[in-house]
């Protein structure tokens, strides 16, 4: 096999890889570009900061209430799921036998594969109807927390597994017990990675619509939730609602505007996660 033949093969394989990679890069870029192009006419500060207080309900006014609702649900869900995720990950690392570890991983991978609408349905039956919490902020946050839990557990495990074994062994060799190892070695060492996982979970929470549609959100009549048991309005369901009014061009452009803001919000959390990852690497 001479050199030119090897170069020829290399060029062909490189071309195939490029041909396969370009659509994967191009399609999301085109979609994102299209969203922002369509959103550009409505996208201004008044649109983002204006609260829908009148009958317009985000159709003729701003989307601040929806934006805040989305953030509120995502933050509550993360706050609820994070301690359980940390506890599960620590149980996995410290107490679980290798069989239990395999079982836990299989279970969380399976849970991650369950369509979120199924969680929404369970939330509707159990929380909204059986517990009589109604369509509320609390019901939505709990269901969303359940959706996020597998992701957070796997993220937390990944963060803990990045701690070198020699570090733990050095602590063990000093006679530190499991709680010392957790509080004095693992958490100080991995908090940036844990926070990164939490931010990625926030981004995921912001992109979930199905679980909160039945359990937390209403399409009209609500601006701010009065209590944990009040319904809330979110960007995700707002876009869904506006998209159904497909004939009205003004409404559709507001839907594009809302979508652009949602994409930006998810991107902000994704970027923050990247910054933290870089900080950790440094």
């Amino acid at each position, binding site marked *: 096999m001479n050199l030119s033949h090897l170069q020829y093969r290399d060029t062909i394989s490189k071309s195939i890889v490029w041909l396969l990679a370009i659509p994967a890069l191009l399609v999301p870029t085109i979609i994102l570009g299209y969203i922002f192009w369509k959103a550009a006419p409505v996208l201004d500060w008044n649109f983002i900061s204006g609260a829908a207080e009148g009958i317009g309900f985000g159709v003729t006014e701003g989307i601040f209430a929806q934006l805040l609702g989305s953030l509120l649900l995502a933050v509550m869900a993360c706050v609820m799921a994070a301690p359980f995720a940390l506890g599960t990950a620590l149980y996995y690392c*410290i107490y679980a036998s290798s069989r239990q570890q395999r079982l836990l991983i299989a279970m969380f991978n399976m849970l991650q594969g369950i369509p979120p609408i199924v969680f929404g349905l369970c939330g509707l039956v159990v929380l909204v109807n059986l517990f009589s919490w109604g369509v509320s902020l609390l019901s939505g946050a709990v269901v969303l927390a359940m959706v996020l839990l597998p992701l957070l557990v796997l993220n937390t495990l990944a963060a803990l597994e990045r701690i070198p*074994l*020699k570090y733990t062994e050095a602590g063990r*060799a000093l006679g530190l017990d*499991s709680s010392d190892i957790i509080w004095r070695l693992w958490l100080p060492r991995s908090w940036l990675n844990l926070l990164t996982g939490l931010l990625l979970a926030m981004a995921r929470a912001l992109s979930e619509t199905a679980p909160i549609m039945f359990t937390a959100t209403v399409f009209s009549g609500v601006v701010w939730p009065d209590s944990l048991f009040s319904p809330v309005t979110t960007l995700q369901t707002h876009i869904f609602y506006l998209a159904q009014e497909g004939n009205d061009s003004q409404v559709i452009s507001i839907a594009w505007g809302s979508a652009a803001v949602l994409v930006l919000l998810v991107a902000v959390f994704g970027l923050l996660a990247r910054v933290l990852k870089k900080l950790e690497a440094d």
Partner: protein
Amino acid sequence: MTIDPRHENFQQEALPSFDTVSPNREAIALQVERLGLQLDGKVILQEVSFSLPVKGVTSVIGPSGAGKSSLLRCLNGLLTQWSGSVAVNGCDTRQWRGGWDQLRRHVGLIAQKPVVFNTSIRANVCFGLKSWRQRRHADELVEKSLRQAALWDEVKDRLNAPATTLSMGQQQRLCIARALAIKPRMLLLDEPTASLDPHSKQLIEQSMLQIAEQTPLVCVTHDLAQAQRLQGSVIFMCDGRIIEQGPGEQLFAQPQRIETREFINWSVCDCD
């Protein structure tokens, strides 16, 4: 990264106190009898028996894979699924009051590569301190431990500097100081000077000799010259077994076993 306490099933009730004294406690700090270890079906240690005096250095030499590091990890309780018996100051380590964590406080282990925690030099030395009384006297303890580890003069003016700013040799001495701060009854060192420069090596050896005047010290080393410099007794291991043990001068000058002779002459050891 998994801490595995599955083998930490101690008989917590009716534990003998640390002061349960064997008749020859005064003379023997560590008594190992028929120690065996299998990991994933592979025999790592078999029929290992020896004892250590209450002070002085014992060097463990042998080819790679002889089970030297595993032996130290069994003695320290980092590995717990071994068979046989290990008694520290006459007390069976399986029945140690407070379990393996407490045992590890009494039997310090220094790894081959220094692992310093991401805090200050001072905080590193104090890392193993648990009791309020120890923490109250932390300053004295830090100075004493760093002096014993021959590091005090180099770091006394920057105790609050990050430990990661120290050189490898200094980090290893910091690890020794950190282990000494919890006042272990015995110190195990796993090739403490491997990959260090000659000056750091010399400082650590001096420090080890000084520590060994009060505390028994076991040092795994590949460096036969170091084993000779450290004086004391020498254990030669191969294939998980002790082949020969005795005073260093005797073992190096007149080895009784052919395997030992071959190893000392840098031949390939074939114990079978």
